[in-house]
């Protein structure tokens, strides 16, 4: 004989047995696990910087490379070359003072190529209007956080050689 009594639990609770509050809790637990893994990634980044700081203390040796002739560069002229590898674009300028100066062409902000502005006697980055001194590569204006890496040059007779790179210099 069938009874009309109401079941204690509706049928759908058996079919969908996921308990929403518990499920949310599991989500929080998984989220916190993800956060811990991200934290480990950050720690790995800091350890990598520490490792590089100790490894990079010895000055690397740079090969000499001929980059141009001094007689071909008049005041305001520019010579582009790659140093120390083919993937490192550099710019050499004869400044208003008559001095030859060479720098990495990559802006220290976001690595756009800088160019020499003859009128202003400065190196300019067109991407975010960062300006560097053509004499020593220090930041004059704009977002770049550091001076341009300096390419050390040596002149023998008329020939100009790139002999080294001063990568890290103090903030100007």
């Amino acid at each position, binding site marked *: 004989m069938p009874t009309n009594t109401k079941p204690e639990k509706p049928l759908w609770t058996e079919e969908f047995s996921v308990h929403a*509050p518990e499920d949310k809790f599991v989500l*929080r637990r998984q989220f*916190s696990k993800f*956060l811990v893994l991200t*934290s480990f990634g950050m*720690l790995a980044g*800091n350890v990598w*910087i*520490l490792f590089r700081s100790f490894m990079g203390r010895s000055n690397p040796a740079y090969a000499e490379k001929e980059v141009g002739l001094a007689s071909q560069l008049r005041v305001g002229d520019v010579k582009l070359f790659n140093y120390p590898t083919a993937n490192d674009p550099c710019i050499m300028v004869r400044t208003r003072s008559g001095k030859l100066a060479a720098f990495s062409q990559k802006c220290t902000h976001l690595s756009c190529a800088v160019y020499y502005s003859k009128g202003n006697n400065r190196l300019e980055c067109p991407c975010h209007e960062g300006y560097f001194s053509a004499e020593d590569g220090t930041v004059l204006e704009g977002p770049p956080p550091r001076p341009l890496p300096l390419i050390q040059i040596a002149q023998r007779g008329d020939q100009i050689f790139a002999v080294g790179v001063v990568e890290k210099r103090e903030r100007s």
Partner: protein
Amino acid sequence: MKPILNELRQRRRTVVDAAVAFLVILLIVQMWLLTATLEAYLAGNTDAAIPGAAVSFVLFLGCFGLYRFVDRIYRT
């Protein structure tokens, strides 16, 4: 019995929420620390590398401890 259980669940969820929020704060600090250390390294200042790594390790331990705390609540 049921209201007590619900209250316990509610309290447990509040504690877990607080732990996750604190974890997020620690992670933001660690992210800032990594950015600052990297910026200093690229500028040629390697003095920040050791304290940066040490503080990052402490923050990681804090995050891991909070995760263990959340995990323990889940298991009990």
